[in-house]
């Protein structure tokens, strides 16, 4: 929720970042970065093991 207040109303236009012809909204960039975090966690987080597992 603090992020909402920092960036303004959710109903307003998105903030865009532009490098040349590449443009992406901040929201979209955050989602992409979060997806990468999920991927890294999925690879490195250990799975609970049970005693009867080989």
């Amino acid at each position: 929720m603090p992020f909402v207040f920092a960036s303004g109303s959710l109903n307003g236009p998105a903030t865009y970042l532009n490098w040349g012809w590449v443009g992406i909204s901040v929201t979209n960039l955050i989602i992409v970065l979060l997806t990468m975090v999920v991927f890294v966690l999925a690879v490195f987080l250990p799975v609970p093991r049970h005693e009867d597992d080989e």
Partner: protein
Amino acid sequence: MATTEKVGIPAGPSPHRNRDDSRMWTNRLRTQFFGTFPPEKLLPDRQPAYVASWIYVFGVATIAAFIVLVVSGLVLTFAGPAWYHTSSVGHFINSVHFWAVQLFMLSMVVHLWGKFWMAAWRGNRALTWITGAIAFFASVATAFTGYLVQSNFESQWIAFEAKDGLNAVGIGAWFNVANVGQMLLIHVALLPLVLGAIVIWHVLLVRKHGVVPPIPLNVSSPDEAPKDTGGPSRPDTRAQTRGSAS
């Protein structure tokens, strides 16, 4: 040979006396299908030890999201926009459908990244990768037509952006994004069936070939590196050292 005798499914010659039905297409299809997919292979109890990683969860998470999408989509289809735009339950089911799309796309992308970096096409699994890629693009098309069905201002914007793209690749004559009826039927009828069929094929291929083993660790030079580490479906008879897979 076929292990279907264990579950009482006849394979080969007919169980009836004095008759050979082995050449009938039903017999041959049944024999071939249950020969390739015995029940314990279709629904296995165990997986290899290297599957004990969270990265392997995202394929089935994608399927789970797809099932939620189909079920919520069926509710929306039968009840119609006059319901799901006005009632509170309708709003909720509409939201479930929308957020299931987001979870579907997130899971599918993480699944795709995992399969790419583990080179999951190894061991005669090229068709598994290809069906996965086709499913990815079909999913994007399904999501796109779904967004169009909203027929709000944003969907009109993306529709005419897409119209430029479709015209540029020459298929704009057959897919008219301004035709809401066509887009609705493609989203509700055509693409779910196509996507469902592709996903079933994809999963059957995974069942057939097994989960791809990890890339071997102990490879000291490119000359020693096996071009294809095989897997359960194609035994690797070349001498090689294997990394610790368990």
